[in-house]
């Protein structure tokens, strides 16, 4: 049950979060520009929106699941202080 929950939740570490943000920016803005140019050159709005939709689907596949690539920098917590020994 915990495994299913972690899969649905899909937590990634801080470094992974930065990476997914970068991927998102480059892919969406880049594909918007490229799909405009291709559509303009081929004189077809369909080309434009197929390109944009396809690149969005690819981006979702790359960014949304918690791939292990995004979990390569886990946080190193300090060891737990054991209290009450002094007393």
């Amino acid at each position, binding site marked *: 049950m915990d495994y299913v929950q972690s899969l*649905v*939740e*899909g*937590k*990634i570490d801080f470094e*992974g*979060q930065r990476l*997914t*943000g970068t991927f*998102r*920016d480059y892919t*969406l*803005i880049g*594909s*918007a520009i490229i*799909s*405009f140019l291709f*559509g*303009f050159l081929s*004189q*077809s*709005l369909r080309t*434009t929106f197929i390109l*944009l939709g396809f690149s*969005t689907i690819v*981006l*979702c596949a790359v*960014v*949304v*699941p*918690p791939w292990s690539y995004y979990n390569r920098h886990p946080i190193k917590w300090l060891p737990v202080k054991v209290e009450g020994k002094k007393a």
Partner: protein
Amino acid sequence: MYSAYQRINNIFALLSTCIFALLGAIALSSFVFTADPKGSLSIGSLKVYPGRSPHFKQLRKEYAFVNFEVHADLSPLFHWNTKQLFVYLGAEYTSADGTRNDVVIWDRIIRRKEDANLNVKGRNKYEFRDVAVSFKNVTPAHYTLKYNTMPYVGVLTYSEAARTDNAIPFPLAQERV
């Protein structure tokens, strides 16, 4: 970007911004295409007959019947952002009381580039009558072929493709033959 749900939300937030920017760019790109096709328009015959108004049976009104011929190749107007063209034939004249009129007497919607080469010999599609009862004392009319380019995204543009060289006077009403 912590959980999968946040990442989906984040992607679609930026995607909506990108789509709006893209639509804006597409709307602006229509101004790059400055085709201004011209055609020819001639009026074959113009007759005026008296008739009864369908709404006021007692009233006898005068109806004009226009035979016209239109030749215009409007296919240059079709580019990636053209959805359809609305082509219409208008009659411009001034009524006896000084009102300026622009009456649409025929129109056609063109949805495909293949249909954009117009060669039409026809008669007015819509009933053509003056606001007053008769066409007496109205000025001679100019006939114009105008079109309205409808884009998928962006602004509607209006333009004129043809115009009769001389104003054509309305003949006196004749009884039905």
